C-alpha cells in the first residue's frame, strides 16, 4: 500500500472514531435524503395541481357557448408551465417566477402564482432541496472534516515523525487529498444515488444525471481539496478554520448576493411601472385598433378595400373588424416583443456580468450548472414565456381569423359562431429545451469549477514543499 493510501486510510479511521464528525456527516446525509423525498413529493403535488387546473381551464374554455370570437379573445386561456423533472433536485428560480400565464388578445401578461408567494414565509429563505444542502451546507461539513487534516499533524508534531519515516511532503499532501476527496464523494453519494434511481425510472435522461453528478462531484472535491490546502499552509488548525470559514462566507454568502447587486447598479432595469408607461406610449403611437377613426387603421381600411376591389367595408366578403383585429394584434405583439427583447437583453447583460465574476465564487458556477441541468434556471423560464407568447399570438389570431371568415355568414344584432369552433383551438403544450441547447450555459460554469481545481493543483506542490521543510 502506498504512503498516500495509508495516510488516506488513517484519515478515514480518524473520522470513524470522531463522534462529532460522524454525527455531522450522518445529519447531512439525512438532510439530503429528507430534502430529496420532500422535494419529490412537493414536485408531484405541484405537477398534479397544475395538470388539474390546466384540465379544468381547458374544459371551461371548450364548454363556452356560442359566442362572438372577439369575446373568446378576451375570455383567453390559462396556461401552466409543467415542472421540469429534475426541479425536485434544484428548484432554481421556479419558486420565485410565476408558472401560470393568462393569455388574451392585445396584451402580454406576466407569469403569476409563484410558489414563494403562495407558501409560508419560510419558503422565501430557500426551499430545502438536495441542491441547497450540497451547495450551502456540504462545504461547511467538508471544512469541518478537513481544516485540521495537515495543521493537526504540525501542531501535534506527528508531522515531524511522519517525515522522519521517509515520506515526502508530496505523498503526505496527496494522501490527505485522497482521504478528504473520497469523504467528499461519499457525502455526495446519497444525492447521487437519488439522481441515478430517478434516471433509472425513466423520469430524466442519463446524460443530464451524469453531468449533474460530475458538476456536484467537482464542487464537493473543490471544498475538500481547498480545506486540505489551507490546512497545509496554515500553522495551526484554528488558523486554517478561520481562513476556511472566511472563504465560505465570501464564496457562498457574500459574492452570490453582492455580484447581482453590482450588476443591477451597472445595468439598470426599468421598474415595472416605467416599463408599462413606455409600452403604453409606444402603443399609442401606432394607434388604437378599436378606434375606427384612427389614421393608421383608416389607411389600412383603404388597402383592404383596394385588395378586395370594393368601396365600403359592408361590401367586403369578410368581417372587417376581424381583419382590423388581426392587424392590431400583429402591431401590438411586435411592440410587446420589442419591449420584452430590450428587457431580456438588459437581463442577459446583468447575468453575463455575474457569470463573468463567477470565477471569484464557484457557487455561482455550480448554481448555474445545477439550475440549467434541472431545467429551473431563468433561461428555462424565459423559454416558457417565449413559447406561451408564441402560442398566445397564434391562438388570438386564429380567433380573429374566425371572426373575419365566419362572422359574415351569421345574421342578427348579436352575431355568434358555433361553440364547436372552440374545440379547433389548439392547447398549449410546453416543450422543454433539449439538453444540447443548454451546452452554451454549461461550458463556462464547468470551466470555472475545473479552473478552481486546477488552481488548487498548481498550489499543491508549493504546499508540499512547505510541509517537507516543516520537520525542522
Amino acid at each position, binding site marked *: *500500500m502506498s*504512503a498516500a493510501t*495509508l*495516510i488516506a486510510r*488513517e484519515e478515514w*479511521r*480518524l473520522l470513524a*472514531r470522531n463522534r462529532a464528525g460522524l454525527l455531522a456527516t450522518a445529519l447531512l446525509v439525512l438532510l439530503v435524503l429528507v430534502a430529496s423525498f420532500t422535494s419529490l413529493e412537493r414536485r408531484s403535488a405541484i405537477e398534479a395541481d397544475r395538470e388539474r387546473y390546466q384540465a379544468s381551464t381547458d374544459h371551461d374554455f371548450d364548454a363556452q357557448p356560442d359566442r362572438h370570437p372577439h369575446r373568446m379573445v378576451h375570455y383567453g386561456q390559462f396556461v401552466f408551465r409543467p415542472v421540469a423533472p429534475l426541479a425536485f433536485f434544484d428548484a432554481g428560480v421556479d419558486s420565485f417566477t410565476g408558472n401560470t400565464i393568462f393569455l388574451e388578445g392585445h396584451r402580454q401578461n406576466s407569469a403569476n402564482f409563484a410558489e414563494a408567494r403562495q407558501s409560508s414565509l419560510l419558503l422565501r429563505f430557500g426551499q430545502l432541496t438536495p441542491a441547497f444542502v450540497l451547495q450551502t451546507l456540504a462545504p461547511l461539513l467538508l471544512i469541518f472534516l478537513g481544516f485540521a487534516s495537515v495543521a493537526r499533524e504540525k501542531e*501535534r*508534531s*506527528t508531522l*515531524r*515523525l*511522519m*517525515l*522522519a*519515516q*521517509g*515520506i*515526502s511532503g508530496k505523498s503526505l499532501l496527496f494522501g490527505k487529498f485522497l482521504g478528504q476527496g473520497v469523504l467528499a464523494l461519499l457525502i455526495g453519494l446519497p444525492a447521487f444515488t437519488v439522481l441515478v434511481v430517478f434516471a433509472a425510472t425513466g423520469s430524466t435522461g442519463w446524460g443530464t444525471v451524469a453531468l449533474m453528478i460530475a458538476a456536484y462531484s467537482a464542487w464537493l472535491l473543490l471544498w475538500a481539496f481547498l480545506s486540505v490546502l489551507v490546512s497545509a499552509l496554515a500553522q495551526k488548525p484554528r488558523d486554517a478554520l478561520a481562513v476556511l470559514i472566511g472563504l465560505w462566507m465570501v464564496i457562498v454568502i457574500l459574492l452570490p448576493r453582492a455580484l447581482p447587486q453590482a450588476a443591477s447598479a451597472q445595468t439598470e432595469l426599468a421598474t415595472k411601472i416605467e416599463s408599462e408607461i413606455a409600452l403604453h406610449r409606444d402603443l399609442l403611437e401606432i394607434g388604437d385598433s378599436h378606434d375606427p377613426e384612427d389614421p393608421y387603421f383608416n389607411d389600412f381600411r383603404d388597402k383592404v378595400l383596394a385588395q378586395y376591389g370594393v368601396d365600403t367595408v359592408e361590401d367586403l366578403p369578410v368581417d372587417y373588424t376581424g381583419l382590423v383585429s388581426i392587424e392590431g394584434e400583429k402591431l401590438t405583439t411586435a411592440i410587446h416583443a420589442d419591449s420584452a427583447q430590450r428587457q431580456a437583453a438588459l437581463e442577459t447583460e446583468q447575468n453575463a456580468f455575474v457569470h463573468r465574476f463567477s470565477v471569484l465564487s464557484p457557487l455561482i458556477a455550480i448554481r448555474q450548472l445545477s439550475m440549467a441541468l434541472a431545467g429551473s434556471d431563468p433561461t428555462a423560464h424565459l423559454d416558457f414565456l417565449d413559447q406561451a407568447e408564441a402560442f398566445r399570438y397564434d391562438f388570438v389570431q386564429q380567433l380573429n381569423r374566425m371572426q373575419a371568415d365566419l362572422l359574415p355568414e351569421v345574421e342578427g344584432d348579436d352575431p355568434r359562431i358555433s361553440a364547436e369552433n372552440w374545440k379547433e383551438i389548439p392547447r398549449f403544450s410546453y416543450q422543454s429545451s433539449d439538453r444540447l441547447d443548454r451546452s452554451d450555459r454549461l461550458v463556462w460554469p464547468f470551466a470555472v469549477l475545473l479552473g478552481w481545481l486546477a488552481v488548487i493543483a498548481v498550489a499543491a506542490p508549493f504546499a508540499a514543499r512547505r510541509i*517537507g*521543510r*516543516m*520537520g*525542522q
Partner: protein
Amino acid sequence: MMTEPHIQPAVEIAQLHHRYGADPVLRGLDLILQPGEIYALMGGNGAGKSTTLAALLGFISPESGTVQVCGIDPVADPRAARAQMAYVPENVSLYEHLTARENISYFLALSDSRRGSDAIEAALTDVGLASSAWDKRLSGFSKGMRQKVAIALALARDVPVLLLDEPTSGLDPRAVLEFNRLLDSARKRRVAVLMVTHDLVSAVDIADRIGFLIAGRIEEEREAQASGSRFDLNALHDRYTHAERAA
C-alpha cells in the same frame, strides 16, 4: 603491508554551519560516528543539539559544510537518508486515537518497512511495555509509556542509525536501565546511536563517547575507558555545568 579496509562512518558531519535568520546556530560542527558506536551529545539550551538532528534528518539545508548518513546526503536525497535512520523525538508525538500496536504498524508502513507483527511485538517486549497495554489507545498512556512506544518504533525499523532526542526523559530509573540495555544490544548489532541528552548519568552508563556542544561546535569530547570506571563522572559534571553556563 596489509591496510585496514575502509569502514564507512554511519554519520559524518564536517564543518557544518547553519543559522536561523541572523542567528548562527552551528559554527563548524564536526562529528563522526562509526557503526556500533553510541555517542551522547550534551550541551545547554540553544547550543545546536536539535539543529544537528534536523540536519541529519534533512529537515534543514545547512549554510555550508557536509552531512552524510551511511554515505547519503540527507539534503540531496532525504528519503534515502531517512531510510537509514530511526528517530525518537523529545516530545513523543504519536496518534492518541490509535493503540500502541497500531501506531507502530502505521509508522512502519509509512517508512515502507516490510517488518510484520512479530517484529512489532518483539520491539514492544524489548522496551518493556506490558503486553496488556499493546492494544490500548495512547490517550490513556503516561509519558514514559509513550516514550517506550516511540523507542519500540525506532527499534522495529531495524536501521543502521538511531537518532534519539532526550530518550530517557519521562522514564523511571528501572526503565532507564532497561533502555540502556537495549542500546547496548543495538550496539552489538552494529547500530550507531546518536543521542542528545541532559541525562549525564545515563550517558556515562552507556555512551562510548560524550561530546559537549557549545555555541555550535563540539568543544570537548571524552571517550569511555576500556577498564575501570568508564568516565570520570565528577569531571564530566563540572564540564557539563560549564557548558550549560556557556549556553
